[in-house]
């Protein structure tokens, strides 16, 4: 399996999509640094009334860091989808897959190898961008999240989950159809998360319940919320309340239940992908 992981890693790093994502990332981090500069220059001059117990610096920093996490998730998902959208159907159509599948290595090992490579690249990328954004905010705004590493790891797991979904889709769909389908699922998850935030702000139990179901059905969204929750996990009072109104600090799903479910979900995805790929005529 290590052969396939190595092959897929080299493929990921040498394809143009990786270069494009890197360029986009540099642009994003540059603009993010600029935004931080202006935000914290203005925050320094804001005079909050004494009877309003809001820490404007914490609020601004946590908000902008949450926004960076959203952007990181999005860029990570773009990378994950483009690395996996044609892993089976697309590669088979182009004739790339058949020479590999006829080798003694099993189809299961091939698909697991492809997943591990994509997950490694995406997780590494997400962690790097998350840490870079957090460092920018920390250096410019003198604010650090309540938890440093764990939110990044959670975010990386969310992207790995999307890579798993995309691999499963690649068994059944052409590259284009799979890419569209995965981005639509990703969008649906994000919308459900935003709805949940609105539901909590409005005090609507129905909307909150629906959003919670969506988050569990699409655990990458639940993991994203979990990551958001962690950066302000020890922020309380009015500042914490305002942050939880969202959209970049309003995570209401999280904890070990969601993380374990996400792991089980990934195993189920893997099993379904291997089963479907094993039965597919190439």
């Amino acid at each position, binding site marked *: 399996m290590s052969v396939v992981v190595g092959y897929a890693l080299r493929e990921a790093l040498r394809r143009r999509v990786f270069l494009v994502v890197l360029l986009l990332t540099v642009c994003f981090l540059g603009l993010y640094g600029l935004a931080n500069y202006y935000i914290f220059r203005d925050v320094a001059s804001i005079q909050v009334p004494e009877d309003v117990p809001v820490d404007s610096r914490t609020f601004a920093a946590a908000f902008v860091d949450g926004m960076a996490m959203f952007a990181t998730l999005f860029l990570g998902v773009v990378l994950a989808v483009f690395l996996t959208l044609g892993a089976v159907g697309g590669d088979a159509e182009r004739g790339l897959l058949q020479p590999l599948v006829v080798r*003694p290595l099993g189809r299961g090992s091939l698909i697991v190898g492809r997943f591990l490579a994509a997950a490694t690249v995406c997780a590494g990328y997400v962690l790097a961008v998350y840490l870079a954004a957090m460092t920018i905010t920390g250096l410019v705004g003198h604010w650090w999240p309540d938890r440093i590493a764990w939110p990044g790891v959670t975010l990386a797991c969310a992207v790995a989950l999307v890579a798993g979904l995309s691999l499963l889709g690649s068994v059944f769909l052409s590259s284009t159809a799979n890419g569209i389908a995965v981005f639509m699922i990703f969008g649906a998850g994000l919308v459900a998360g935003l709805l949940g935030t609105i539901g909590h702000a409005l005090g609507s139990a129905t909307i909150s319940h629906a959003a919670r179901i969506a988050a569990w059905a699409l655990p990458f969204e639940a993991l994203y919320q979990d990551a958001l929750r962690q950066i302000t996990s020890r922020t309380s009072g009015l500042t914490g309340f305002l942050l939880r109104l969202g959209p970049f600090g309003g995570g209401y799903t999280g904890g070990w239940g969601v993380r374990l479910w996400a792991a089980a979900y990934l195993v189920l995805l893997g099993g379904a992908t291997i089963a479907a790929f094993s039965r597919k005529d190439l």
Partner: protein
Amino acid sequence: MAAALSVRSLSKRYGRVVALSAVDLDVEEGQLVGLLGPNGAGKSTLVKIACGLVRASAGEVQVCGARAGSPAARASLGYLAELFRFPGWATADEVLELHQRLADSDGGVAERTRLLDLVALADARKRRVEEMSKGMQQRLGIAQALVGRPRILLLDEPTSALDPVGRRTVRELLEEIRGRGVSVLLNSHLLSEVELVCDRVAILLGGRIVAAGTPGELAEARGVEIETDEGVRVFDVARREDVPGLVAELVAAGRSVYGVRVLRSTLEEVYLEAVGGTTS
């Protein structure tokens, strides 16, 4: 010893379409068998089932005594697909190295050098696939199929993208491979090529084998042509054994005989007769 490839009552359906129907075929050790047929006859499907890429609907296929698709069967074969591609970012050397590792071959650099030499790509060792011509990629594909010293090669249209010189190179390569005891199943549209190199030929039509045998067996006697001072005379029902008698009769009748040719149908004629003009 088990046949290199043994196909028994093999059938394959894609929905309502019957791709193969009760096909029997054997490729013995060291034998080069040509598989002919129009487009859609089921040739590629048969090869893909033998490789484990496609599942059979019924019947049995064994590769070197192992069930087709099993790790043992896949370890015994080398395969070149009709429509294949290698990653454009990889060099020729990297492609072969990848397949060496996948095939668990311990040939190392020496094997890669030998294979690249064999397909006349020694100078393109460090060239990326995306910088190669289609013909070069085709030859690299053949080298890839030979990685790990397979006992049987399954080649689906291996010369489709090659120029005449490239085709000749491949033909010589196939003869050399056969000389080493490797069995080959060759799918090809090029009848002359099949006729030149194959020990046996099978013609598929509509998923069934409609003719099979050695090129000599398939090429039926079509009479004897004798050139005399009166012109060329054709004896339609005569065979090779009849030539001395015919010549004696003509000479006795005062004719001068300048040449004699025993007529046999070519593989192309056999093929056209078998497929009845079907093209796809």
